[in-house]
């Protein structure tokens, strides 16, 4: 609303009026041309990060089984923790099944609950 009024008053002030210039200088800091450009922070990502892909989707691994210790061990940290999705890139449905499989494997002593004793 304020911007609209300044735009309409600006040509009027250029034409040479007594009153409009008085209102004009107070609003001139208001109209900001760089805003639509929307680029004050362009820094953001400094280095290129490779897109992570879900191992199970790419290699078409259908079964995530608690018996397959080799496979599960890739997604378990040294401490015995399940590695989060944001680090491994596994998709949500696969991570869900992976975590159940890891928990089953822990139950039958194929994987540790907490790091190696």
């Amino acid at each position, binding site marked *: 609303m304020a911007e609209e009024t300044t735009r309409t008053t600006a040509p009027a002030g250029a034409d040479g009026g007594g009153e409009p210039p008085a209102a004009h200088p107070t609003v001139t800091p208001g109209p900001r041309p760089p805003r639509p450009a929307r680029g004050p922070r362009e820094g953001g990502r400094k280095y290129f990060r490779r897109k992570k892909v879900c191992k199970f989707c790419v290699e078409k691994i259908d079964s995530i089984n608690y018996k397959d210790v080799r496979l599960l061990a890739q997604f378990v940290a040294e401490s015995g923790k399940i590695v989060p999705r944001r680090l491994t890139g596994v998709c949500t449905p696969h991570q869900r099944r992976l975590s159940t499989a890891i928990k089953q494997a822990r139950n039958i*002593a194929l994987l*540790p609950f907490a790091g190696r*004793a």
Partner: protein
Amino acid sequence: MQRSYELMFIVRPDMADEDLDRLISTLESQVATAGGTVKSVDRMGKRRLAYMVRRFQDGVYILFTIEGSGAVVRELERRLRVTEPVIKFMTVRVDEEQKRQAKIKAIRESRAPGKAAPPAEMAETGTAPATA
């Protein structure tokens, strides 16, 4: 209700082979008497345990694949609990997972010829929304 289960249990490592054979055969007969069927018995051999179980660092893993109702599993687990050489056991229901995998396989197979002949696949996708 017939379901398939995987029953994995760990036997203490210092058990003699013939005792193990006897244990397995008695368990198999118990499954039969409880009304289930044993599909397969897999001896996975001696493995290092990920953590100590009853002061054992190793164990002999045995895997049963069973078909039967929940009552069969209940009975078998009760037996395992009182069987002294068995140090740990776990039952996992597998029929739903098998069903899911069969479904995926079927989908994949139906898609494979579609890839070979792209027009056929397009026709297939065209008809899919109409049926849905």
